[in-house]
């Protein structure tokens, strides 16, 4: 087990995000975390990477309880992780090559020739060796995400987290990212956690999936099991219906009453 979340409670500004959340990520598999917008999927990644502590519950990564770790140990743990951000989060004052080389330069004393080879290998893996001299501002959204992926794998992490990797991509870029996630998992044996709400895309690559709704796991299993579920909440999410347990309307006073009421 790479990530083990048990009975986690977490509230943000008094609003509960998770209440009694249980998620297990197994080594070498692609685990999909799905759920409607605002259910705290990204917050779950923040909890796993120890950016925020849970209010209650147990959170283990690589078998270590995060709550008792100091800053130094947390950094040690993070060196075994990689994360792909929605917007890439590339450092804007460095070119593509330097962005990918950044973690290597920070954590190792490797000679320049070796760093160059390492970076070019990773850029080749994402198909952007030719873009090594470009600045982040010159990249398209899909390219920026691939560079960020090269940077995330440059230190050979054991677990790779993807935060909404498919948002805002054209079909070609989306297909490329999908294949890359699968490839990283199969060829490098990297455990992957993919946070997204793109059900169709995830179904093609995920081994396990969790559907989070209302602060807890609404359903879990393989994508096929989720699709076959007869739970109304799961069916609504998987089919994308406006009506169901997750209401279309945000709670509001009666429509007619509000329209006819005089302004005061």
């Amino acid at each position: 087990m790479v990530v083990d979340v048990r009975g986690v409670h977490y509230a943000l500004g008094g609003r509960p995000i998770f209440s009694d959340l249980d998620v297990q990520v197994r080594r070498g598999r692609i685990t999909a975390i799905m759920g409607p917008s605002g259910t705290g999927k990204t917050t779950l990644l923040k909890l796993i990477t120890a950016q925020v502590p849970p209010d209650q519950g147990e959170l283990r990564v690589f078998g270590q309880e995060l709550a008792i770790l100091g800053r130094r140990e947390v950094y040690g743990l993070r060196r075994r992780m990689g994360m792909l951000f929605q917007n890439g989060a590339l450092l804007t004052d460095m070119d593509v090559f330097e962005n990918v080389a950044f973690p290597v330069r920070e954590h190792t004393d490797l000679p320049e020739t070796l760093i160059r080879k390492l970076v070019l290998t990773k850029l080749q893996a994402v198909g952007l060796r030719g873009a090594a001299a470009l600045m982040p501002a010159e990249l398209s959204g899909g390219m920026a995400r691939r560079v960020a992926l090269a940077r995330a794998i440059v230190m050979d992490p054991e677990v790779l987290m993807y935060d909404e990797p498919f948002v805002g991509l054209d079909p070609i870029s989306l297909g490329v990212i999908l294949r890359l996630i699968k490839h990283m998992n199969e060829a490098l044996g990297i455990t992957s956690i993919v946070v997204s709400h793109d059900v169709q895309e995830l179904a093609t690559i995920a081994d396990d999936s969790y559907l989070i709704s209302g602060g807890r796991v609404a359903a879990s299993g393989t994508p096929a099991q989720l699709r076959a579920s007869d739970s109304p909440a799961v069916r609504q999410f998987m089919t994308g219906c406006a009506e169901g347990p997750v209401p279309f309307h945000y709670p509001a006073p009666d429509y007619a009453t509000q329209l006819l009421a005089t302004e005061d």
Partner: protein
Amino acid sequence: MSNGDRDGLIVEGIRRLGSVVIFLARLLAQCAPALGRPWLLVHQVYNAGARSLIIIMLSGLFVGMVLGLQGYDLLHRFGSVEALGSAAALGLLKELAPVMTALLFAGRAGTALTSEIGLMRATDQLTAMEIMAVDPMRYVAAPRFLGGVIAMPLLTAIFSVVGLYGAQLIGVQLMGRQGRLLVADAGLGRAAQRHRRRGQEPGVRHRLQPDRRARGL
């Protein structure tokens, strides 16, 4: 306001103060490791210092010119124009240059740094560093802080020099005050140093013996 609200505000105030102090302590703790990356430091001295040069020099020039003009106008009435150099130099070196440079530095370099770091925060660059196990405090904050610490005294010195030039420009070039005397008055020239060695106050001689050429002697 109820007692509960007031207590909440006080607690919140103390909490914020505490977080600022912790931030400062962490920043200072990261300054020594940041010294191990001289290229980052040089870049930040350039960013904070060299890029503030124009505004610092321009302001210094005008502050000096105003000091020269107003000082000349006032001192002329009392026949003590000789003291213009001292007044301008002391005013600039002791008070005006450090304060004005600090304000201009905060305005120019401070806002540039804040917007730069704010943008890094908004585009998740700082979070990405955290995830890559690189402390942003060491990589982003400490070099900028040290860059400012190095750049500030240099900028203050440049402000003083340009300000003195501005005062000289008005007091000597425009109003016809003797350049030699301005430098001597300020206690900066060789004559002043000679006087000091003899135990005399520089500039006093000039006040007691008004300029001979001015009297046609």
